């Protein structure tokens, strides 16, 4: 499994635990957008949307570029993909362990079987 990085995992999971933030991610998955464009799509205040965006930024999911007076946001899906990989890593880990256990038992049976025959 190599060195699995867990730093920021909680932030990523916390970020996607909210439906508004998931909707923001979905919007940014379609294309980059200005903060004001995103806010226009939600029935909540610009201030509330900004708070959600800041959480996404802290989790590393959203990147902001300031051009003049406009703040452009883009999606960085990599941390999410890493979080999703994590459970798959563990599934592989235990699947591998149970296969190794079977090999171990088979080997043990073979050697004890041989001994009995002699």
């Amino acid at each position, binding site marked *: 499994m190599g060195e*699995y990085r867990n730093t920021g995992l909680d932030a990523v999971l916390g970020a996607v635990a909210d*439906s508004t933030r998931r909707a923001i991610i979905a919007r940014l*998955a379609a294309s980059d957008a200005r903060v004001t464009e995103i806010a226009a799509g939600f029935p909540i205040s610009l201030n509330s949307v900004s708070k959600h965006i800041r959480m996404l930024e802290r989790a590393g999911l959203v990147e902001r570029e300031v051009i003049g007076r406009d703040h452009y946001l883009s999606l960085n*899906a990599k941390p*999410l993909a890493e979080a999703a990989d994590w459970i798959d890593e563990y*599934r592989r880990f235990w699947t*591998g362990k149970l296969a*190794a256990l*079977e090999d*171990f038992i088979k080997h043990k049976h073979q050697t004890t079987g041989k001994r009995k025959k002699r």
Partner: protein
Amino acid sequence: MNAAPALTVRREIAASAEELFDAWLDPASLAVWMRPGDTQRTDIQVDARVGGAFEIVMHTPKGAVSHTGTYREISRPHRLVFTWNSPYAGQTDSLVTVEFHPRRGATEIVLTHEGLPSAEMVAAHRGGWSDILVLIGKVHEKERAAGVA
């Protein structure tokens, strides 16, 4: 905290439940099968009683990786429950339950690992989470198609 099982892995092995159960608590057995492919050596310490601790240190080319936990239930040969901590499992204790179901001439092992941070989220936000994963897939496809590094 009774969330849906996080992940379950099953395997039927041609051996008695007793033999398989013992392989989980015997350090010499664990040293053989409880190690990833690139592990050079595995150090095992097992205090096989309820409340007792275990430590599995896997020495890999990249360094030592320690897995630790405490036995919560030892019901030979049916059920083994222990907490699990590793660099992969984050800072929180996760819980592993291993059940041994005798089948004709074999035993089915059902291993459930729960309390994983991401798994809790998957269980609690299954809909939203899978939507997100579909989205990620699409974004990656798009990036690859566009040749974005």
